[in-house]
């Protein structure tokens, strides 16, 4: 490349770069003049993105005065990106956040307190799934609108059960039934496992275990939320089940990637999974069945992992516009459209109880009806507080440690309780 053309190219690049400033800058304006443009951060991809974009197009066409401008942010990056943006005084108008992030976001300046707004009749707050409402509330204040709900149930490979001559799981199954089935389905020669478990010690390792703790009658924290309570005898028994399966029976595939299990299940290497509706689309090659979780003493409660839309007040009438948009987005009609397209579970009871609609969803994605019904089994939620990330880390480490056989369940849980209490004390 000649020197002259090189200089030309560089100048062109500099020019392109400096004129890269977009239409509306970033600073919140004082006067609402003309159309309001809302910055909308989401992490939807693939089918979800198609559905969301269709809804956005519909809204933008009908509302020239309130335009919603989407920006893609991976969900697991959303908190970090929000943190940086907040420090610079540039939060978005609406952002998608994991429910578990809500306690951390609570202290953010500009975060809109929705407690009063959700009481307005058009929002119909009581129609949202109870578990989601609870997860959206921090210290009595509603800080987010449910965007997504799910829950954990049992997904199993019918062919593997047939081959082993086992009866399919029933709603009355106990965890011991699952353990026995897992053992029968495990074949070391064929490299086949009866069960799988996420072993990256993240929140995934924790919330897959919480239902067992709760079914036994245990709880994560004490009533007043000041100390850990998961190392109770109930908790130890609950962990002994998984630890026994992993260490003694060797019937569990220990998934340290926390994503290998999908392709392994899809290829008949795993018999049963404790997972959520989002995975169903990843099993095209398996004749799978879905059943509610096994239980202890007839208690089959499960856990939900709701995610939220959070709103920030950037002045200039944007907050009101954002609320108006979110009300529309989470209204029953839009919820139905989205659920049918994506397989997401309904965030509203009115939609979840609509058997005809749920039946429609199940035609598109078999098994999703069981998940929808399972929403009724969501009784409690994880604590929403500052110290939760550290409690989660402690619990996750304990579970992984016990399942690797590195420590006994009681010792592992006691250690985690100690660390959690330290974190709770620090948070004050």
């Amino acid at each position, binding site marked *: 490349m000649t020197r002259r053309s090189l200089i030309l190219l560089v100048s062109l690049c500099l020019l392109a770069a400096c004129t890269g400033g977009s239409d509306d800058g970033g600073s919140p304006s004082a006067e609402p003049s003309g159309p309001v443009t809302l910055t909308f951060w989401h992490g939807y991809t693939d089918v979800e993105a198609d559905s969301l974009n269709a809804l956005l197009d519909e809204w933008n066409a009908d509302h020239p005065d309130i335009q919603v401008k989407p920006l893609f942010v991976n969900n697991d990056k959303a*908190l*970090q990106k929000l*943190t940086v943006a*907040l*420090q610079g005084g540039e939060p978005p108008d609406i952002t998608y956040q994991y429910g578990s992030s809500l*306690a*951390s*976001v*609570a*202290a*953010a*300046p500009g975060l809109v307190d929705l407690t009063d707004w959700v009481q307005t009749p058009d929002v119909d707050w009581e129609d949202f799934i109870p578990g989601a409402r609870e997860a959206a509330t921090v210290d009595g204040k509603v800080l987010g609108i449910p965007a997504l709900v799910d829950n954990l149930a049992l997904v199993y490979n019918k062919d593997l059960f047939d081959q082993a001559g086992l009866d399919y799981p029933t709603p009355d199954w106990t965890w011991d039934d699952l353990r026995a089935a897992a053992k029968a389905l495990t074949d070391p020669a064929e*490299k086949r496992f009866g069960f799988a478990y996420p*072993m*990256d*010690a*993240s929140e995934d390792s924790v919330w897959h275990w919480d239902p067992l703790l709760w079914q036994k009658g245990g709880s994560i924290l004490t009533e007043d939320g000041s100390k850990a309570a998961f190392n109770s005898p109930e908790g130890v028994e609950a962990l002994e089940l998984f630890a026994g399966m992993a260490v003694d029976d060797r019937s569990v*595939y*220990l998934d*340290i*990637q926390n994503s*290998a299990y999908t392709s*392994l299940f899809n290829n008949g*290497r795993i018999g049963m999974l404790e997972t959520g509706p989002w995975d169903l689309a990843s099993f095209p090659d398996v004749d799978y069945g879905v059943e509610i979780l096994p239980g202890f003493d007839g208690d089959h409660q499960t856990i939900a992992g709701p995610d939220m839309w959070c709103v920030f007040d950037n002045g200039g009438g944007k907050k009101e516009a954002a609320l108006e948009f979110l009300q529309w987005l989470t209204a029953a009609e839009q919820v139905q459209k989205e659920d049918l397209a994506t397989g997401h579970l309904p965030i509203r009871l009115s939609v979840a109880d609509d058997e005809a609609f749920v039946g429609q969803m199940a035609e598109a994605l078999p098994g999703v009806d069981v998940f929808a019904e399972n929403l009724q089994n969501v009784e409690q939620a994880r604590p929403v507080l*500052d*110290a939760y*990330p*550290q409690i989660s*880390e402690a619990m996750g*480490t304990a579970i*992984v*440690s016990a399942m*690797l056989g*590195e420590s006994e369940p009681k010792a592992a849980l006691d250690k985690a309780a100690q660390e959690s209490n330290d*974190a709770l004390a*620090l*948070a*004050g």
Partner: protein
Amino acid sequence: MPDDGGLNGSSVAAPAPGRLRRLLTSEHLSGWTFVLPAVILIVVFGLIPIAWGLILSFQKAGLISPEREWVGFENYARIAADPKARQAAVNTIVYTLLFVPISILASLLVAHALNRRIALIRFYRLAVFIPVVTSTIATGIMFLWLFDKNFGLANWALGKIGIGPFGFFEDPDQAMVSLVIMTVWGWLGFDTIIYLAALQGVPPELTEAAAIDGASRWSSFWRITWPMLGPATLLLVVWSTISALQLFDEVFFVTHGGPLGRTSVVVFYVYRLAFEQGLGGLSLAGYAAAIAYVLFLVILLLTLAQFWLARRVVHYTS
């Protein structure tokens, strides 16, 4: 020209002392003119942020809210009593002690192999460089599958010769070594192209002459080539040490510090404190910054030591 190996050694001798003063002034002026654009940029985007971070280390702060509370050296004092910080420090040191020597020696060998005119040499050079170009995420996924205890290629191959199976990333005792393997593999190409460029600077006439004089390949390498690689080696040792002590991406995307915290390195721990666990009420960002600045101090001292050592060993002008 006296060669002291240090930065102050080499410069071009000025003409007669009569105009010395004027030239001295113009030496300083021209020196500063040359470095000024870069220095301004780096001061603005490098130094000022570092100062900000340092101030943060003396405060109790959560990155979500703008609140700050001055706590002096309390954050620094806390580090000693924090078992997780200790674990992170040990892991980081172990990693660095394994990674740096292995990658420097391996890249030297590979660069030497690539520094020749044989068929397919361009293909070989490209092949070695490809992992550097591949994203960390893609590399991570590949290695997780490769090292899977039950289904991975590594255990399958090792099983054929009667060894294993190994837990690799799943085994608390093997995870660190697996991490070293993965990162050496991923970054070898980087060190190699630097060594390759340096080897290009070794006049073949010298090695040729030595060969004609009957020197063995090994002694001609050791006596002629190796000393000329001094500056490149210094560059790579300093750079690899700095990078190894600041390891983050591979831990974040592949091991998440596990299993059981055995691959949790300092920067990873800092990140978790600042961006995941210490937000809101816990306000651990200041503490995280304090840990980062202790690491900074360690890196600084280590680098100075390396430069000082290089003064005695590295030769610059020919």
